[in-house]
């Protein structure tokens, strides 16, 4: 079943420079609203207000890390269906397999190409629509 075009994305990362890069990179995608959060805890606070189409999570963050944030989303009926993508420097095959087992629809390795990042996210979104991601 199609979810329609990607309209809203939440990006969660404790590193301010990367948040800024992602915001700029996703700014190249037409009509896409992007919200950035500096921690998993902050993301969990913001989710009820924003209810994004897609959540992008850094893995290693102080406090509530990416996997814990995903687990808490999956435990909440309001957020259980929001697809999650990990964006991480921890992208060895075993780690990628673990993130997929946790329920991530995709894993994007850092460093990523900011010029291609927006299209990459759209492609993942379209893959979710057609059961490919």
């Amino acid at each position, binding site marked *: 079943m199609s979810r329609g075009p990607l309209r809203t994305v939440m990006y969660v990362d*404790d*590193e301010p*420079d*990367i948040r*800024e*890069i992602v915001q*700029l*990179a996703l*700014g*190249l995608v037409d009509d896409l609203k992007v919200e950035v959060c500096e921690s998993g805890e902050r993301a969990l606070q913001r989710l009820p207000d924003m209810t994004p189409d897609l959540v992008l999570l850094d893995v*290693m963050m*102080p406090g509530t890390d990416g996997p814990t944030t995903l687990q808490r989303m999956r435990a909440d009926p309001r957020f259980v269906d929001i697809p999650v993508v990990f964006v*991480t*420097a921890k992208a060895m095959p075993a780690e990628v397999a673990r993130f997929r087992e946790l329920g991530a629809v995709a894993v994007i390795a*850092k*460093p*990523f190409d*900011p*010029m291609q990042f927006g299209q990459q996210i759209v492609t993942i979104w379209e893959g979710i629509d057609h059961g490919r991601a």
Partner: protein
Amino acid sequence: MDERDELQQKIADIAGRYIQRTAGELGGLRELIAKVRAGNAGAAKEVEQLAHKIYGSGSMFGFEAVSEQARELELVAKEAVSPQMVDRLQTLADALAARVQAALQARGVK
């Protein structure tokens, strides 16, 4: 300038800020290693997190030498704490500082 050129320019600006901020974090890194040496095992986790941050962002901004050095530091910080492990942390932190300094000099920053 189209929006892609503008993005490239902004990325270059952010990269400059990143390497300067990283230079400022090295003092904190040394303090954390001193805490590990004094028996604070929790500080090793903080070293690991800081090194991971430098590693991940460094590669994003093209500071490969800085990133690789930070990765080594991150991996050692995960090991069980011992006098030898702390010595290696210190050696790697010194090497990281040298690479950050080289990156700053390459950008014309003293």
